[in-house]
């Protein structure tokens, strides 16, 4: 490195951006002219370090901050997370309502079928539909996990009732309580397990009707048939066709 190169890099050395800092230092030790140049730049930097930083007026900063906040107020709602937006919340609630509605349609059809059954079952059907109406309110309000839990509990209770019916009054299982609320799966379970249903107090009349059907025609029916010489069912059919 020669003196010209050294003096060019003196400033960079002070500013810690020299390409060859070791070379500059070596030459500064040997060359008084280069050393004088180095001291001069150092002195100049020391002098100008006293250059004051000026402060802008506070009202100018206040005006800038007002403009910045105005933009933030516009931007913040637009860039809110998608799941926080009211539109998404409304859509989610609507979807949930539709889902619950679709889920409850088969239950409504079943209730209609039940209401079309013979007269003896009508009180029981009424109780069930009333209970289901209550169910709907509860299900619509309850989270999905709660609904599933209630169904599982109902199935569990039915199996325990079946056990209670077979084990007799000495069983540790508590006596069955009338239940108004019955989810759809419970009705399917009843159809598959009539023994458990008999243990339930919610449908005693339906059970009696079934027993009567299994036992055959009653004494009154037999007497009527004997009087007319044809079965009562045929008589009823004739009357209906005449109408």
């Amino acid at each position: 490195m020669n003196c010209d190169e050294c003096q060019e890099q003196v400033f960079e050395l002070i500013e810690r951006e020299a390409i060859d800092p070791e070379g500059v230092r070596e030459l500064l030790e040997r060359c008084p002219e280069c050393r004088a140049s180095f001291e001069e730049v150092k002195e100049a930097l020391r002098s100008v370090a006293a250059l004051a930083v000026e402060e802008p007026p506070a009202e100018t900063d206040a005006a800038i901050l007002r403009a910045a906040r105005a933009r933030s107020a516009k931007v913040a709602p637009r860039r809110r997370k998608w799941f926080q937006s009211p539109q998404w919340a409304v859509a989610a609630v609507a979807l949930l309502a539709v889902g619950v509605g679709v889920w409850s349609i088969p239950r409504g059809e079943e209730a209609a079928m039940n209401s079309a059954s013979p007269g003896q079952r009508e009180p029981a059907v009424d109780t069930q539909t009333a209970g289901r109406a209550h169910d709907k309110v509860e299900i619509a309000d309850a989270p999905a996990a709660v609904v599933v839990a209630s169904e599982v509990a109902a199935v569990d209770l039915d199996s325990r009732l079946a056990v209670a019916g077979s084990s007799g009054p000495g069983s540790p299982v508590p006596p069955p309580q009338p239940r108004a609320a019955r989810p759809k799966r419970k009705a399917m379970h009843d159809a598959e397990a009539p023994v458990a249903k008999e243990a339930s107090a919610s449908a005693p009349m339906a059970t009696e009707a079934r027993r009567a059907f299994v036992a055959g025609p009653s004494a009154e029916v037999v007497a009527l048939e004997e009087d007319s010489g044809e079965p009562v069912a045929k008589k009823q059919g004739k009357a209906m066709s005449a109408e």
Partner: protein
Amino acid sequence: MGDPSDEALLSGYREGDAAAFEALLGRYRGPLFSVVLRSVRDRGRAEEIYQDVWMKVIERCDDFRGDAKFSTWLYTIARNLCIDHQRKMKFRLHASLDQPQAGSDRAIAARAPNPGPSTEALAAGGLLRERIASAVERLPDEQREVFLLRQLQGLAFHEIAEVVGVPANTVKSRMRYALERLQRTLRDWEEHDEL
């Protein structure tokens, strides 16, 4: 954890965080205003330009590229506004300086005095500061902007090169010339005081 970077603050502001902008303003208000003031040499104009710079930051913050530094972006905006202002002033100055003043047959340019610091300013204290400020204002534009960005904002030479649009070596040369000139001016004033 350290303070968030300027770029992180700007990103926060883009998402609507006004406090992030306030933090940025707090970091740059003094140096930025000083650079603008020393560039345009008029406090009223400097306040206008300073405000315009931040308004542009607010308006264009969505255009800021993540690969650039906020400081270089900010000072590029400031520099462009200062250049615009100086062009306007040059046009006005040429028009007014060529016109003889009322009550005088000489144009202002012909009788402009040595624009050193006023006696009042020197007497009020802060003599050295006033002299340095005055000496800086006399630097050629290209040397002054480099000197101010380095001295007041502490930008690296390669960052100044990005703002000014010249190679980093040119920036270093301009800085060296600026220092030599400042040193010479201050020495001249000291000698003048001794007389």
